[in-house]
């Protein structure tokens, strides 16, 4: 039998494998690039970019929770210009798909970022309207259908590359936001960003994070992420990049079956820096075992029970 096809055509963009590094957990690839060849990844979502440099929130910025972590980085990044000048050329040396994750305080900032980064020829944009760790922008845009549509529409006008909108799980009905983004022209959706959480140090009576709250990621949130991908995939026609707690190939397969075309791996990299590669291999092995010749044959193939 020929080895199963792992490549995916996602909103017109080619991914060598269905496994992508999640934004914010992978920086701009330099560090993980010292541990393995970045060309082995399907794609890289770079750290969230803003118009101007941001220093982020004060530390501590991370806390451990049962099978999860909380982070409150707060979009620290050198700004889009520095990224384009210093980081993108480095990433371009690798044969992998580069996705720029963008966050604005205003719709105008999103547009400016979209323009700059699509001109710089990243392969795709991921519009972050779901960061729980910044005051202005971020999550605020992601919690109503109206503002999600507004941002999406504006970004689409200013982008020459496909636009993916990253959804927040901190909402009553994620399908409503998903449909709004689709209606406004999004080429794809990514979900989920982190769930807002908190921990308190009972000795000091202080929150563990200096930002008081942070975003919950890791295996703990996997069932929520899977449910949301399943719901959203039934609600929209555009393809989905699924993430949230994926730490092994079996999780990735569940996510694909639930309706994702690609998966992102984030927090799992902290325990195992090679997690994305192991997951890629595991998906291949699963396909072989099931005698399927392409990973795309998994997408959305869960058979729900009729209620």
């Amino acid at each position, binding site marked *: 039998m020929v080895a199963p096809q792992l490549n995916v055509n996602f909103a017109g963009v080619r991914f060598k494998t269905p496994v992508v590094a999640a934004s914010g957990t*992978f920086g701009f690839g330099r560090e993980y690039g010292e541990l393995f060849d970045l060309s082995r990844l399907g794609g890289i979502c770079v750290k969230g970019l803003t118009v101007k440099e941001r*220093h982020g929130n004060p*530390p501590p*910025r991370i806390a451990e929770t049962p099978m999860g*972590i909380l*982070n409150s980085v707060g979009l620290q990044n050198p700004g889009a210009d520095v990224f384009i000048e210093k980081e993108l050329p480095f990433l371009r040396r690798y044969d992998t798909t580069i996705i720029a994750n963008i966050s604005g305080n205003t719709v105008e900032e999103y547009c400016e970022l979209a323009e700059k980064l699509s001109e710089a020829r990243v392969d795709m944009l991921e519009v972050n309207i779901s960061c729980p760790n910044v005051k202005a922008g971020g999550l605020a845009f992601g919690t109503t259908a109206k503002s999600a549509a507004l941002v999406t529409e504006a970004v689409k006008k200013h982008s020459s590359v496909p636009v993916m909108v990253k959804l927040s799980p901190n909402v009553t009905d994620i399908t409503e936001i998903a449909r709004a983004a689709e209606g406004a022209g999004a080429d794809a959706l990514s979900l989920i960003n982190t769930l807002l959480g908190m921990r308190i140090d009972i000795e000091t009576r202080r929150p563990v994070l200096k930002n008081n709250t942070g975003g919950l990621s890791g295996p703990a949130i996997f069932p929520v992420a899977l449910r949301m991908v399943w719901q959203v995939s039934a609600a929209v026609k555009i393809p989905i990049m699924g993430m949230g707690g994926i730490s092994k190939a079996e999780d990735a397969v569940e996510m694909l079956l639930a309706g994702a075309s690609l998966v992102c791996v984030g927090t799992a*990299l*902290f325990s*195992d820096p090679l997690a994305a590669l192991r997951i890629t291999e595991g998906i291949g092995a699963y396909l072989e075992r099931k005698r399927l010749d392409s990973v795309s044959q998994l997408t959305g193939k869960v058979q729900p029970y009729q209620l």
Partner: protein
Amino acid sequence: MPELCLGRVADNKKLTETVRALTVEAEAIARRAAPGQFVHIRCGAENLLRRPISICDVSGGAVTLVVEARGAGTDWLARREPEDVLDILGPLGNGFDTGGRRILLVGGGIGVPPLLYAAKKAAGVKRAILGFQTEHRILLEEEFKNACDEVFITTDDGSAGEQGHVTAPLKRLLDRGAADAVLACGPRPMLRAVYELASQYGVPCQVSMEERMGCGIGACLVCACQTRENGQLHMRHVCKDGPVFRGEAVVW
């Protein structure tokens, strides 16, 4: 260039009630380790995050890690036995600059071990001030005595060595003009006091900072440490830019 190794535990020696010295065979890490660098260790499937532990010593293809059991992860680590295999990432970060004619090492509590390898690697005259809470918490006294020209011990309760903080002997040595460089590791308030004292004497001071970590390699940006360099504020990262910073760069 960090390596991801499976290292075999060769020895686990009890140093105090809560502190263990683990010797781990990890050739690729041992070969490159510099004083002040650390490793990031997986502590069982229950703990999602790795734990950063300094390299205390290197001999042959093995590194020595001195671990204090405090929470779930270090507790797990301290219970490893010979033949157990550890998933280690390292060596990581920027360590100490051990150059200089007369080096003064200042360590507090579990901040003492990382200074041992610095003492061994430094070329000049080496002195160490090691502070602990109490006598039975003293770590590596013999080892430092072997590696250094002079060793001063302080304890908070005076049960051994001089009573009080490391700053008292530090001041005396600085008064004598006995140090060209201070290398410090320990709790943040101690680091700050040591740096401020050294800077009063115009002696450059390197400090090894602690911060909670995710990736350990500089990608996730969680282990932030604010610095002021050439008048400009920067957000640096303990795992990659540190753990060792110049005292005057740290925004205390």
